Structure formats: structure tokens, C-alpha cells
């Protein structure tokens, strides 16, 4: 579903990703871990098409297409969903309005008819229950005055309504207490399916206790330094990121000092 080859990305002319390779197939859940500043969130933003993240080398194929040629809204309509690390507050725009506008944009794109108010509300109410959210949040402005936990739940609610093909969850566990974390994890687990892929970007292994990934990757110095099965996450929790970074540093020095 997603193939990333030799991806180099700069932000404000500063190289952040330096030759990242990643392949994600339908049905798989991948965890991207790594220390702060390793480029985890940059990867999430580049996939969503955020301005200011400049791809200087490499390519990203999504469903066989060149993802980088698509505008952010086209990516979303093609089924890419980013659950933001810091969901944006939008005063004056009701949560329910955003949900409906987004869902109908997808449906139009897929050639389906738009949902009317009754069907839409029935759909959303079911998802609200799944996320243990109060219906009143629908009628408040998007994320305005929401607690940290409510914002993260709201992201997963949107994901549940939009049913993406590829979901990228950027630090969705940060700032959540254990109860909220369980609710969010339940919501995510309920959406696992053979047609859907997920990328969980996280600093801690905690989230992976509740959402078991198929693959775990460690990012260091802008590349995937280490990949493994779900047990790798527990290794990292015990040993920290220092040793992975040190080895990546050595490899980097060796390749920089090598011939050519």
C-alpha cells in the first residue's frame, strides 16, 4: 500500500529525514519509534502533505501512485488520515460541520451519494459511543476548549467516521491518562482490518501494550536504524534508544568516511 524509498526531507533547509525506506502492506500495523528529534513527526507530516516539509530526494508510492504529486486534500480523499499530535483548535467551526464536510468530500470523491443529516447523525452517534464521547462535543467548535484527552479522542472519532485506508497516528498516546489511552486503543483496534494499514508514531512503548503492532521500526538520524517484531518495543523500553543511536552514528561515520 505504501512504499517509501530513500526519502530525504528538509525543514527550513535543515535535513531531517536522510534516506528513509519503509514498506507498509494492507492489513499491517507498523510502529515507528525513536528518540525526540529523530524525524518521526516529520514522516507523519510529509505523508499528510504539510507545507514547509520539502522532499529533496526519494519517492513515496501510495496505492501505486506518486503520493507527493497529490495535494493534502487529495491524499485525504484517497484514504490517508493523519491523527495529529497537536489537534488544531478552530473557533467558529462546529465539530459536526467539519465531520460532515469531510465525510461528504470523501463520498463525493468515491462517487457515492452524500449522507443526509439523519443518516449522518446515526453514523456519528455510533462512533461517539465507541470513543466514549459526549454528544455535546459535536456541537462545540472544533477542539476549542477541549482537554488534551478530548482532542485525541476527537481525532480517533474523525478516523472512525472517515474510515481511512492508511491511518497515521502521530503521538496519539502523549498526554493521555491510562483510561483515555485504553479508550483510544479500543477505538483503533476496532478499526483494524485486512484492507487497512496503520502507522503508529510513538516515543513510548506504552501504547503498544494496547495496540499490538506487526512491525516495529526505530528511527535515528533520519533513517530507519532498526526493524523488528513487536518484541523490539519491549527491548527498547528496557535498554532505551541510546545504543540504537550510537550504532547509527557509527554506520553514518563509516559511510561518510568510506570511498566515494
Amino acid at each position, binding site marked *: 500500500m505504501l512504499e517509501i524509498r530513500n526519502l530525504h526531507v528538509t525543514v527550513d533547509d535543515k535535513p531531517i529525514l536522510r534516506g528513509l525506506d519503509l514498506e507498509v502492506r494492507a492489513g499491517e500495523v507498523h510502529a515507528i519509534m525513536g528518540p525526540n528529534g529523530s524525524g518521526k513527526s516529520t514522516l507523519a507530516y510529509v505523508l*499528510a*502533505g*504539510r*507545507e514547509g516539509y520539502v522532499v529533496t530526494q526519494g519517492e513515496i508510492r501510495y496505492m501505486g501512485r506518486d503520493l507527493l504529486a497529490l*495535494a*493534502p*486534500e487529495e*491524499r*485525504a*480523499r484517497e484514504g490517508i488520515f*493523519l491523527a*495529529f499530535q497537536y*489537534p*488544531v483548535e*478552530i*473557533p*467558529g*467551526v462546529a465539530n*459536526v*460541520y*467539519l465531520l*460532515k*464536510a*469531510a465525510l*461528504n*468530500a*470523501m463520498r463525493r*470523491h468515491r462517487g457515492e451519494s*452524500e449522507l443526509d*443529516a439523519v443518516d449522518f447523525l446515526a453514523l456519528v452517534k455510533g462512533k461517539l459511543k465507541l470513543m466514549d464521547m459526549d454528544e455535546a462535543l459535536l456541537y462545540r*467548535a472544533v477542539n476549542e476548549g477541549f482537554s488534551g484527552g478530548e482532542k485525541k479522542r476527537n481525532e480517533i472519532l*474523525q478516523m472512525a467516521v*472517515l474510515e481511512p485506508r492508511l491511518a497515521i497516528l502521530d503521538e496519539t498516546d502523549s498526554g493521555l491518562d491510562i483510561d483515555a489511552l485504553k479508550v483510544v486503543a479500543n477505538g483503533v483496534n476496532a478499526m483494524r482490518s485486512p484492507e487497512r494499514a496503520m502507522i503508529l508514531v510513538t516515543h513510548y512503548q506504552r501504547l503498544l501494550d494496547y495496540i499490538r503492532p506487526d512491525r516495529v521500526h526505530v528511527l535515528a538520524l533520519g533513517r530507519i536504524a532498526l526493524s523488528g517484531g513487536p518484541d523490539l518495543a519491549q527491548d527498547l523500553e528496557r535498554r532505551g534508544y541510546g545504543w540504537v543511536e550510537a550504532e547509527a552514528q557509527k554506520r553514518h561515520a563509516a559511510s561518510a568516511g568510506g570511498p566515494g
Partner: protein
Amino acid sequence: MRIGPEEPCVPGFVSAYPSLAVQLPGATLPWLRRSRDEALERFAALGLPTTRDEDWKYTSVAAIARRVFRVDAASDVSDEVRAVVLLHVIEGTHRMVFVDGHFMPGLSQPAPLPTTLPQGARICSLAQAVEARVDDVESVFASADDAADGFTALNAAFWSDGAWIDLAAGVALEAPVHLLFVTTRSDSACFPRNLIRAGEGASATVIEHHVGPDGASYLSDTVTRIVLGRGARIAHTKLQQEGRKAFHIADVAAEQGRDSAFLSHALAFGGQLSRAAIATRLGAEGCDAKLAGLYVGSGRQHIDHHTCIDHASPRGTSRELYKGVLDEAARAVFNGRVIVRPDAQRSDALQSNRNLLLSEDAEVDTKPQLEIWADDVKCAHGATVGQLDADQLHYLRARGIAEGDARALLIRAFAADALAGIEHGPLRVRLESLLPGALPETV
């Protein structure tokens, strides 16, 4: 029929006055003729303001001063004008239509107006009120201060018609009164004048609506005076949708009685050069004034708002919120003056002006002006100028909403609280449709 002037603005109007005055409403009434004569003298002495006047520092009316305008007599209503009126009808209102400054009973609805109004509500054209010698028109005229500048003086000398709305004590008008002023001809000058008086505890909503064709360059010089009795409530909405080549100069002033409430909305969309002065005087204890405004400009439009809230008595509350959305090379001026006089203890005033610039060439001059002479008061003001938020825009796009729709959505969200106080549903829907960009048809 075309009537003078034949010279540029100031000398043109002065020399055309003697022949025009005899044809204007109330020409045979000595008090009115005297009032017009005096106004003309003031106009001749004042001339038009220049950028040397502090109040007109950022708004040059040189383009008006250079022009030769004519004053048109009433003429037959064409199908074209009928179509324009239909386009601007607002459902659920009493409608009075004025074409080129003249009342058109045939286009007004319901006609004749008074039949559907509650007892004690008198609504007619100002010319009718004057000709019928309705009691007190003279005193309301006399209380109007029209010496402020050349434009108000010019209106006082040449006004051709407008609305006379007089509500006896306790009369509450349920449906808004929609005053629709249509200008149809290039090079014409119109001088609408509206007088609104609400007796003790009376209440009404008045929509003052100015429209004209985009291709015509004309001058619309308007004056509205509002007198609120004890406990009265008037909601005044001024909707400026003049043609894109028009000059629009407006002056609205309210005088508030004890415990009265004045709610003003000033909404500006059209014109090449427009200026609205909105003022209220909290003249007795316990008054409440709410002033909201929204100006939306593009191209090379120039939009100026000068507001003045005069806390002249104790325990008054005022809330002011003006918002601007400016694209391309549009320019706006906001000057908000709040005066708290020495006797006006325990006044409570809040003022805010926020601007959204959609292009690098758009510009706004914003100037709050607080003059506080009392010590036991609560006053605050603030002004901001900003762009659309890149994070918000990206967030919406990342949810599949096209960039243009996302921008339109954020512009609406920005403007929302300036329109929130508009109580008449069909009017609010109309206003939202005038904001830039079309919204996705989803909700």
C-alpha cells in the same frame, strides 16, 4: 428629468440649490426651507472634508470633489429596477423601497404600509410625514446635529426622502422594517434621510439597505437619526451593497434615553469608496449600546468606519466588535472612539477591532481612541491584524476539504461573531452568502 448641478461638487451644488430647493419635499414649509437654507450655508462654508481633517486623515474624498453630480427627479420604475428590488427582498419584513432617492409605494410591501402595523406605529416616507405636517417631525429635525461635516450638511440641504418611523410608547414591531435604497443611474447624487423615534418601551428592528449597479458611479450621501425613549430598544442594521464604482458616505447617530438599548450592525460590502460614521450617545442612566461591524473588501475598495460611543451618563454599558476581511489591494480604516464623561461613573465599555488580511497588498489603519474622564469605570480595547492560520488551513485540508472551501470556512468562522447579533434569520442567511468563497454544500 435631469436637474443641475453643472459644475464640480461644491460650487455645483451651491449654485444649483435655488432652483432645486423649490422642488424638494416641504418646499412651502417655512421651517423646513429655513433648515435647508442654513444647511446649504454650512455646506458652502465647510466644503468637503480633506485629509487635513483629523477625522478624514486616511480617507480622501478628492475623487468626489472633482465630480459633477446631478440630482434626479422621480421617474417611472423600469423592469430592470423591479428585478433589482426582487433580488434584494428580505423575507418577513415590512419593505419600503426608494429609487434614486424617491419613495416608490408601488414597490413597497405590504402596501399601503400602515394597515398591517400595530396601533401607535407610524411608518411612512419622510416626505409624506413632512407634507402631512405630522406633529413633531420638526422637533426631531431640530434635535439632529447636522453640522458635523460637509456631507451631513449637504444631505440636510438636499434630502429628497427616506423613512419616518415613529413608535408610540409600548409599541413593539415584530417584523423588521426593511428600507431598500436603490440607485440606478451613473453620475447621480442621492440624499436619503431617515428619522426613527421609539417612545418609552417601544422596540423595532430597522434594516437600512443600500444597493446599486456595479457599472454606475454615483454618490449616496445618507443620514439616519434615531431617538430612543426610556427603556426603548432599536436594532439598526446598515447593509451597504453599493455598486463597485459608487461613493457611499453615511452618518448614523442615536440618542439614547434612560435604560434604552441600541443595537447597531454596520455591514459594508460594496462601493469603491465608502465611509460610515456610527455614533450613539448614552444620554441617561443605565443605557446599553452594542455596536458590531463587518467590512469585506477586495479589488481597490476603500472602506472607512468611524464610530463614537459617548458615555454621557452613569451605569452605561457598551460593547463594540468590528471585523474586517480584506483581499487584493483593498484598504480599510477603523476609528473607534469611546468617550466616558466625568459624570458617567460605573460605565463599562469594551471595544475590539479584528482584521483578516487575505493578501499582501491589503491594508488596514485601525485606531481605537479611549477618552476617559471618570474614575470608576471598566474600559478595555484591542485591535488585531492577521492572516488565515496556516495550521487551521492544513488541518481542514488534511480532512479532505478543498483549499478554497477551507479558506471560505475559516473566513466565515472569523466573521461569525460580528453577525451573531443579527436576529432576523433570512437576513443572517443573506449576509453569510455575501462572504467571499462558496462553502461546500454539506450541512
